């Protein structure tokens, strides 16, 4: 039995630290191996059930309170049970997508961080206006800009007009005013254009609603509300090797499935830890692995892992009983009764733990 790398490394480190001789080291190795062998899982172990129980048992103690300010950074993030469910459900968009942006050396100071914040935090025209007038008669929308905010953002009205023109709108810009003319006489159309204009992002990265700088372990880090990983990683000064998002699907798309897997583990263990619950990481690893084995992130639940099972009866038992039964009949499915619930249903031994053996030898009756 070989020791896994991680333990080998630890043994080496401990031996070096305790200044052990070669023969002592050999003894330590032997003893570690012995303990390791005793500490291993036993074949047949219902490892999935244990993991599921280990995660959901403490989950009954978690809070339902959704929001909480994450540390000094003041970014509100979903926490507790709702967040945990969100992770296992692999929701398309998390309710509070956030990024943690690490910076390259040159930018690792308050000024550098601020500069990057100004580059990524989205600024909408709305944020720069002081008043909006809709002229229904002439089909015009007049936007009066706030010069102070404008200069703060380092933009001029001409810049705004240029961006709006890219969106195929006819815009005329004066120093303090933008007027957008629309060829229509319907009020609803005007209103539509108005909201479109006001929500146009003129600066920063789309989706990043907030960005806050804070110091973490002697390093300047930017926490954001809203996530757009691929765009942020392109920005000069951002360390793309460490920057992460909490959006599992986005990470899977940008960084790959392995990154998504470790993000699931990280986020889940962070959520549990934050609630003061002690759950071994191996259980979370198993969940993350089942969610990602097929190369795509699959949620735990009816549309994901549980719904993709091979057994008709197992699926019918979980959810949407009728749908699974009728479909099975049409496609002529055969249930091979290879997993747990099906065998429970027909009163047979389940193929797990002590029930996993398929070969049984009955010794002939001894005659004396």
């Amino acid at each position: 039995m070989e020791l896994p790398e991680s333990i080998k490394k630890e043994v080496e480190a401990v031996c070096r630290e305790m200044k052990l001789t070669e023969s002592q080291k050999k003894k330590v190795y032997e003893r570690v191996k012995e303990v390791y062998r005793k500490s291993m899982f036993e074949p047949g172990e219902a490892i999935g059930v244990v993991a599921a129980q280990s995660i959901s048992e403490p989950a009954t103690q978690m809070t339902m309170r959704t929001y909480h300010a994450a540390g000094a950074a003041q970014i509100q993030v979903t926490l507790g049970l709702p967040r945990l469910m969100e992770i296992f459900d692999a929701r398309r968009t998390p309710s509070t997508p956030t990024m943690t942006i690490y910076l390259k050396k040159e930018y690792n100071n308050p000024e550098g961080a601020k500069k990057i914040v100004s580059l990524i935090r989205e600024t909408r025209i709305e944020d720069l206006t002081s008043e909006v007038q809709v002229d229904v008669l002439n089909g015009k929308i007049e936007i009066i800009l706030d010069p102070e905010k404008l200069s703060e953002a380092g933009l001029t009205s001409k810049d705004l007009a240029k961006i709006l023109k890219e969106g195929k709108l006819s815009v005329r810009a004066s120093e303090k005013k933008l007027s957008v003319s629309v060829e229509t006489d319907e009020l609803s159309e005007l209103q539509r254009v108005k909201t479109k204009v006001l929500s146009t992002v003129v600066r920063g990265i789309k989706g990043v609603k907030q960005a806050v700088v804070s110091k973490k372990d002697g390093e300047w880090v930017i926490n954001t509300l809203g996530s757009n990983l691929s765009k942020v990683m392109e920005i000069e000064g951002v360390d793309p090797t460490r920057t992460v998002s909490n959006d599992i699907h986005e990470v899977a798309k940008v960084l790959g499935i392995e990154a998504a897997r470790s993000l699931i583990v990280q986020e889940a263990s962070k959520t549990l830890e934050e609630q003061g619950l002690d759950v071994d990481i191996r259980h979370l690893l198993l969940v993350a692995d089942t969610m990602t084995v097929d190369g795509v992130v699959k949620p735990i639940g009816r549309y994901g892992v549980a719904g993709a099972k091979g057994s008709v009866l197992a699926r019918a038992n979980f959810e949407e009983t009728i749908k699974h039964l009728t479909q099975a009949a049409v496609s002529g499915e055969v249930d091979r009764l290879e997993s747990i619930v099906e065998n429970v249903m027909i009163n047979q031994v389940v193929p797990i733990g002590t029930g996993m053996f398929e070969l049984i030898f009955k010794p002939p009756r001894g005659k004396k």
Partner: protein
Amino acid sequence: MIESIEFRLLSPEMIKKLAVVEITKPELYDIDGFPVEGGIMDPRLGVIDPGLRCRTCGARAGECPGHFGYIELVRPVIHVLHAKLIFNLLKTFCSSCGRYLGEDGKKKCPHCGEEQKKIKFEKPFTFREDGKNLTPVEIRERLEKIPDEDLEKIGFKGGRPEWLVLTVLPVPPVTMRPSITLESGDRSEDDLTHKLADIIKINQHLKDNIIIGAPDFIIDDLWELLQYHVATYFDNELAGVPQARHRSGRPLKTLSQRLKTKEGRFRHNLAGKRVNFSARTVISPDPFISINEVGVPVVIAKELTVPETVRKDNIEELKKLVRNADEWPGANYIIRPDGRRKRITKENAEEIAEEISEGYVVERHLLNGDVVLFNRQPSLHRMSMMAHRVRVTPWRTFTLNLCTTPPYNADFDGDEMNLHVPQSIEARTEAELLMEVQRHIRSPRFGGPIIGCKQDHISGNYLLTRKETRLTRSEAFELLCSIGVVPEIKKEKLSGKEVFSYILPEGLNIEFRAKACRGCRKCKKENCEYDCYVVIKNGKLKTGVIDAKAIGGESGRLIDSIEKNFGTEEAHRFIDRVSQLGILYLQKRGFTIGLDDFEISEDARKKISRHIESAKQEVKKLIEKYEKGEIEILPGLTEKQSLEMHILNTLKRVLDVSGEIVAADLPENEAVIMARSGARGGIVQLVQISGCVGQMTVFGERVHRGYRNRTLSHFRPGELSAEAHGFVTNSYKTGENIFEFFFDAMSGREGLMDKSLRTKHSGYMERRLMNALQDLRLEYDMTVRDNRKIIIQFLAGEDGIDPSKSDWGKLDVRMIAKNVVG
């Protein structure tokens, strides 16, 4: 053994072949009360009345599985549950030649060139082509045209598509829709029977009308009605279809409703089953039985039995039990080698005792030492069901050791628990080897002990192992003997630590900080002035107090270490002894708390109120600042939110500071001892009782709900002060004023709401997680695979270590190295 189950569609021919009778009459019984032949309760469909024999198979009620019948439908109808599929088939196959049109359903058939008309599906069973209704007859004709090769391509392998349009309807046997005889002698029929009667009635009606050549609209209406009845027979909760109702107005429970949901056949009867040989009653504590024992009332022990085969070595004992009959320890039944059972009574006991010989089975009462499973719901983890040894008691409740309370999450305020008696040797062996309590001391969740001491056990051991505790030789001897240790004591006076050391296994070495550790900036280790650094050398407690950190459930370092180094049996013995030691010492010393224990000095009280006052002033200043618009805005928050955040932080600090004051002021009394040793309560509870209750929160904020702009009508609208938003200045001892009481109740209610909401959500999450992961198992090559045999992990948990055999999830290399080197 069943190897596999195949799911297919039933063809009309097959339905007829399966059936034993054609059902044509809607009547159930004739005037004499006998079932009508050819009716829905035809006697050939099986028997449900005891005493009668089945007309088809000759078996008695309970043995006869029942037999199907069939109804010949005059006009075909759509099978609603497959309606969506029929629609898809009509769309993707040519209406004239029946060939596959390709995935997107082309406008023109590539095979015969026929133009495809647009087909619309109106839920639940109407199909329209260019605004014209398609009748089931037409649909069936089209489906018939589809060639088998094309069906294969789209994965339709369960039969022919035209079978989805029903021409023959199977009638389920009476055994699955039994009628019940009411007290009045009336018969009450099953919902399915009612529904089938409806179908036959309409079917007959339709048939008659066709024969007499009724106008088309009448026939179409009846056909539609037949379609409705057949549809609701399959599913009575279809969207857009009025539910078929019972005479009383209650919707009928038809086929889908029988299978679906938690109360349906699948989840209620198939995935979960009822069992025999089980018992349930209230639980109560008994600290003097071992952790792996359970006290079972005699009344229960006499009812639950264990089958024991008569062998040479046990025949005498079993005879004795048989002679005792219903007197515990006795036996209830014998099973003769030919399988016949006989009840043992006082009268025939002697006779049976003489009769039994090898090969007989005696169902004897539960005896002391039998292995049983003990369980408390909700069964959230595997430790919710563990194997215990029986100890029969004269009481009427199950009793269990207090240390096994945490894994079951049980208390004794009326909790009930279940007990199951394994009936086979295999089951008993597995229960003993895999499920016994001591095997579950270490939780697989975090790799630490979950079974450990609670409350008085901890206070007792804490007091015993304090520096100043001294016992005389006889006191120590009495104490140790009563927990089963016979010591050899030479000294006249012993310290508490010395007494404690007697129950530690020899060769135990461990060092850790106690719960009572005050977190000094620089730890003085062995020389800690508070005696909070525990050092055990070779099984002798040198320094430190024993408290929750050492022996408590979910944290006990000492239990952990003993379990790891000396095995489960030693840990089992240690927990038994240490818990009893704690209790017995407390009995000797006496332990009580009263209101006096929460009395703080005048000086401290003043300090606290001064502190509260200054905090309130600070809040006032913050409000002023806010009104002037000078408040420091926190990033991402509005002015108002920032103010709230500042106020909340200021007021929350009050509790911390008061905590320090109270902790420093209270003398070491019983209440403080409990908090410090981790037996019960914490410093927060002490402060709330004697100092100040502090800020009440609802949804993580100060209290804001109530009237418009204010919490209660006693405050000015828009008032932002501490008092107006749930700050409680009083302590529980001084008593809350009316406003404070109200806010406290609000906060308390929120907690309750939160809890009941949470259990619902976490319960569903557990179900989904369980469903996703239950098939994973560890193979002999150490890979984790699912039932498709796909590898999920190459080495379980990445290093193969079972958390329930680890040190808090790790292999403690340092400890091993230390032990090796010495």
